């Protein structure tokens, strides 16, 4: 079975985002970019399924600017076999991404597509579900455990009150929660080897998919700042404050 893993290049999760002074967005010039953490987990899960003999090939896909090649190389260094980059200098929304991924899935015919549950920049949490709708496949979102057996996959999902387990017919879509696994680091020899792995470049036009944005960002602002607080010296003073606030009688 072939596994497809879409990955996104985003602002590194440790970097505090700076809102541009003109309110047009976040300043991404000269800041560290990395693979979306949820996508690292997706790549890791695909590799583990290959190591278990469930998967035969792992194809990683990214949609974005040329620099997204670095993200794909990272996935190849972790253990993916082959990469596809769909170059788009414009931002592509989840619906457009899902349509492009559907087009690639039609060509590649993977048995399983594993995505991150959300990108930590847009925080949308949409692409996997949208791709599942477009393909008509079952979806196992927010997965904390994935087990493939025969022609189905059992997915344990993180839900608000606890967890639930569903069984999906293959092919299927899975989106990863942080709990799914601990991604490996790529070793230097693997990083070297990844340079030689195939990376195909395409454009959205190659797939005849309309990715025109449906949503316009009117402005981006800093959230309201919290005013500076006070430090109290001991528990009694803290209780005094709690009483003033009416938390305790």
């Amino acid at each position, binding site marked *: 079975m072939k596994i497809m893993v879409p990955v996104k290049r985003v602002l590194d999760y440790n970097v505090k985002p700076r809102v541009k002074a003109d309110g047009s967005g976040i300043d991404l010039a000269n800041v560290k970019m990395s693979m979306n953490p949820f996508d690292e987990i997706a790549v890791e899960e695909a590799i583990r399924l290959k190591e278990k003999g469930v998967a035969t090939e792992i194809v990683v896909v990214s949609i974005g600017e040329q620099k997204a090649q670095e993200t794909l190389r990272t996935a190849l260094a972790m253990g993916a076999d082959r990469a596809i980059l769909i170059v788009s200098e414009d931002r592509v929304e989840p619906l457009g991404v899902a349509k492009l991924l559907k087009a690639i899935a039609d060509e590649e015919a993977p048995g399983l597509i594993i995505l991150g549950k959300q990108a930590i920049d847009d925080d949308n949490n949409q692409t996997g579900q949208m791709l599942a709708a477009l393909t008509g496949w079952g979806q196992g979102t927010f997965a904390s455990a994935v087990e493939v057996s025969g022609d189905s996959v059992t997915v344990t999902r993180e839900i608000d009150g606890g967890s*639930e387990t569903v069984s999906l017919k293959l092919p299927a879509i899975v989106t990863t929660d942080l709990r799914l696994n601990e991604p490996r680091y790529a070793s230097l020899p693997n990083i070297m080897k990844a340079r030689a792995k195939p990376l195909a470049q395409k454009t959205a036009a190659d797939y005849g998919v309309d990715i025109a944005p449906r949503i316009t960002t009117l402005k981006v602002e800093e959230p309201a700042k919290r005013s500076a607080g006070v430090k109290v010296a001991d528990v009694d003073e803290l209780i005094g404050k709690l009483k003033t606030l009416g938390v305790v009688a």
Partner: protein
Amino acid sequence: MKTLVWVEHDGAAVKDATLSTVTAASQLGDVHLLVAGQGVGAVADAATKIAGVAKVHVADDAAYAHALAENIAPLVAELMGDHDAFVVPSTSTGKNIAPRVAALLDVMQISDILSVEGDNSFTRPIYAGNAIATVKSSDAKLVLTVRGTAFAKAATEGGSGTIEAVGSTGEKGVSTFLSSEIAKSERPELTSAKIIVSGGRALQNAENFTSIIEPLADKLGAGVGASRAAVDAGYVPNDYQVGQTGKIVAPEVYIAVGISGAIQHLAGMKDSKVIIAINKDEDAPIFQVADIGLVGDLFKIVPELTGKL
């Protein structure tokens, strides 16, 4: 504009997240509800009484028993022929279903809205809540998920909605519910608790979490939360996690014990009215957002606090 609101329920009662979603939907136009599930008569009756509700569409069928997105989305897509907006609480169920509906309708969803600015424009947090974007949709129909803590709850009484049964779109046969494991707790639900006591990595183990955090929470009638570090280390179950990838909370009072205050944690709690931090590291980032801070050893401070309350 006619809205269709997803009613979040547990088969017996309407969940609070629905009520804030109704408030958001009422800012757009007429409020219709959708109650889907199996044996949901009582939920549907309760839904008709929610203030401001005009109609309650009831889809009672085995195919909807566990809210599988594969079965629910086609149902919603059909109902959307007669509605202009599908409005869904940002719960794990809502986040699972709404984008599948949006793609079936060929529209872009707007996730986790904080406010309604006009018919088609909304604010929403991006980058773990470090920025607020105002966005405008050009789609013919809207699909929105709503951040519950950003809208007041609609009253559960006073409404007089009419019930309309909806035919089933059937079982799609691509997914099956197997089982669920729901954590049992006597404490208030995290997302609607007025007070939350949260513990972090500094608690060191599950026993300390139970013996230090929980008695304080019980004394205050508070919900119990945790940082990702505490969850990953196995001190508490996953659904305790507050943050970008866990639950978003905005209680009256949030007490962070032994939590450093990483960006991802702050994303889940920095809209709390009053933040209290107890931490031995006076440079911990949590003190930059805390209204009241106490620097010291939580193993001494928290039991003393619990004892004196």
